[in-house]
């Protein structure tokens, strides 16, 4: 444990309590530990990650809008019906994640774990559904190089899907860890305290809801916006 030392106003050289002079060798000095950042840093970090993802899709959108106005080759593809289902799954997963957060806040860990599991499964279902949509389009002879709209469809769904898959890894990690901890399987290594659990789920939900909103936006962009 590190305590705050009062400043040593009278000395400008090496104050007492400093690590010994190691003679210019690169060394650890005194071997002190480093403190962790505050939770606000994690929230800001996640927020900033989302800003950069947002910018990525802003760039894709402007390319989409400009490309649509160029050339005579823009032929909108028909909306694969399965996308309605995947959209519903993803929206639902945001709801279940909120339930998980709420249950944890009330200290009901078991229900929290269940809602988390549901969220993970729904997320997985969404990705499978997106893949099915790709397969259907390919079966209809619509590929990435068929026309610019299909290029954008594949590219945007892939970009979003990759980001969502990343989120799913995080969600899966949290879910497994929470279940293990509930069953006292992770007693020794890296046990999460309650605030840490809340932080983990808070960060996860920021990301997940963003991915959810992003998908709705892409859905509208691809199939409603002309």
């Amino acid at each position, binding site marked *: *444990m*590190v*305590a*705050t*030392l*009062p*400043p040593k*106003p009278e000395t*400008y*050289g*090496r104050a007492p*309590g*400093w*690590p010994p*002079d*190691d*003679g*210019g*060798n*690169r*060394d*650890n*000095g*005194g*071997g*002190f*530990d*480093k*403190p*962790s*950042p*505050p939770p606000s*840093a994690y929230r*800001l*970090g996640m927020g*900033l*990650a989302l800003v*950069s993802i*947002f*910018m*990525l*899709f*802003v*760039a*894709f959108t*402007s*390319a989409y809008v*400009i*490309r649509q106005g*160029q*050339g*005579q*080759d*823009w032929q909108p593809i028909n909306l694969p019906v399965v996308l309605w289902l995947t959209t519903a799954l993803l929206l639902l997963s945001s709801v279940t994640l909120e339930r998980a957060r709420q249950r944890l806040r009330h200290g009901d860990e078991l229900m929290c774990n269940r809602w988390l599991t549901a969220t993970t499964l729904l997320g997985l279902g969404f990705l499978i559904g997106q893949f099915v949509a790709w397969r259907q389009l390919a079966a209809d002879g619509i*590929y*990435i*190089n068929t026309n*610019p709209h299909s*290029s954008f469809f594949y*590219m945007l769904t892939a970009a979003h899907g990759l980001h969502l898959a990343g989120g799913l890894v995080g969600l899966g990690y949290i879910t497994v860890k929470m279940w293990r901890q509930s069953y006292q399987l992770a007693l020794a290594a890296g046990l999460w305290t309650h605030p840490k659990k809340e932080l983990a789920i808070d960060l996860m939900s920021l990301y997940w809801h963003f991915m959810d909103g992003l998908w709705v936006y892409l859905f509208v962009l691809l199939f409603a916006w002309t």
Partner: protein
Amino acid sequence: MEPTTTIHHHAPPSSFIRKYIFSTDHKIIGLQYYFLALVAAFIGMGLSLLMRIKLAWPTETWPTLAALFPEGFAGGQMKPEFYLAMLTMHGTIMVFFVLTTAPQGGFGNYFLPMQIGAADMAFPVLNMLSFWFTFVGFVVLMAAFFVTGGAPISGWTGYPPLSALGQIAGPGLGLGQDLWVISIAIFCVASLLGALNFISTMLNMRTKGLDLFKLPLTCWAWFTTAVLALLAFPVLLAGGVLLLLDRNAGSSFFLPEGLIVSGKVINRSGGSPILWQHLFWYFGHPEVYIAILPGMGATSQILATFARKPVYGYRAMVIAIFAIGLLGFFVWGHHMFVSGMSPFSGLAFSVITLTIGIPSAIKTFNWLGTLWGGRIRFTSAMLFSIGFVSLFVSGGVTGMVLGQSSLDLFYHDTYFVVGHFHMIMGVAAIFAMFAGTYYWFPKMFGRMMHEGLGRLHFWLSFIGVYAIFVPMHILGVMGHPRRYAQSTAYEFLGSALPLHEFITVAAIIMALGQFIFLFNLFWSMKKGAKAPDNPWEATTLEWATSSPPPFDNFGGRQLVVHHGPYEYSVPGAPKDYIMQTDPPLAVAKH
């Protein structure tokens, strides 16, 4: 005395791999970035010398080079496509792996946490990842030299249609170009991870008493740079993804209709090469500031330290940094005046571009104001900082010329532009890196660099830069096109040959000067005089610890800040500098 509430979990690693290779310590990561940039800089410099040799002595044969590069120097003379590959790789290496890497990833990583009194960055593991992504990006880029067709020839801006086509359009445009795009994409991800770490660190990890307006200007510069990176790199990444799809998946985002290459009709339609230019320069212009803002921060810091005066107009400097960063996002179109855009948008881009002159002038005048009446110590670090100001002015003035669309129409594809951006974005930023190296070396390695060698390095570099890049402006005024390997084909350029020879000789001498730096760097690490904790009698927090710093920077102490960052020569103070951690003074400050 209140106990800290944080939980400790980053113990100092003991194994070599954890300590020096996959380190999560910001200081080691900073050094990793720095040395990666150093290697990249020397490779990039070597490529530029090869180009210079071709330009100065176009008809000579070089048997030694032919032995080294049997493909590129077939018959002893450099082939034009090899020249273009050199040009592309020189630009890419320098812009991404030197100018973006060293000032931010190197010095920023090392000194941002220390200057805010923190033990590390907010996310050390992310920090490690961002370095290793950068490293992998560099390796992928280097691999382009060694694949079929060789390195890409589309220039560091990767303009389609050339870059979007395969080998059919030229050597290096097959796998080499793919590797180029992939390398840039990896670099984008690395920069994003780094940027969010910088911002979170500066906003959340400051020590007690260090409010935002007590931060050194270096911190403000790194912070603003990180914001720019966070907003600009995703756009380049988006462009890279689309380009990769155009190259490999048959899409047509950037390929126009009816393109005929090597006598064959390209079966794509409707895309727009200009779209790439918009995406690229939306990133590319802020990138200029990503390269130069950290240099501005370091210069402000160093000028104040060695003039023994506070930075003149601290708040104005902070505002100017932000203004430059903000305006940097609205001027990308000035790279595209010749793309056939509407004259009205050209006018808008022109006006906003010229507006950047205002915050730039504020910064320049404030640097001069800081120097004015100071008791100047001409150390190597100080010389390079003054050199930075000089180059910033020289390069900036020609920016005003190019910012006007009517003038740019003539100058755009000439050496005038090459001279301009090398002055301001290239060597001004590199001078700031040298300044930072001479200034911070004692803290990083616990030893002093050799001052005599440092000064020799400075004068060779300073005179060299002007000898190389001023004549390029003259070439530009003559109408000498850039990017051409063989200028002898044009009769009117015959008179330019002596100028090319002069530039090349100057470049070779300057390159030799850089080896003096390299020698000084490594020699001083081992044999330099022992450095005290605060050899320059500076005020900021990194000097409030041992040289080199311990693993957690401040040996378990939490610093308390009572002073602004640049309290030099305060009337009534016992010494001519007051460190930020010194107790409040009883005397009135003004």
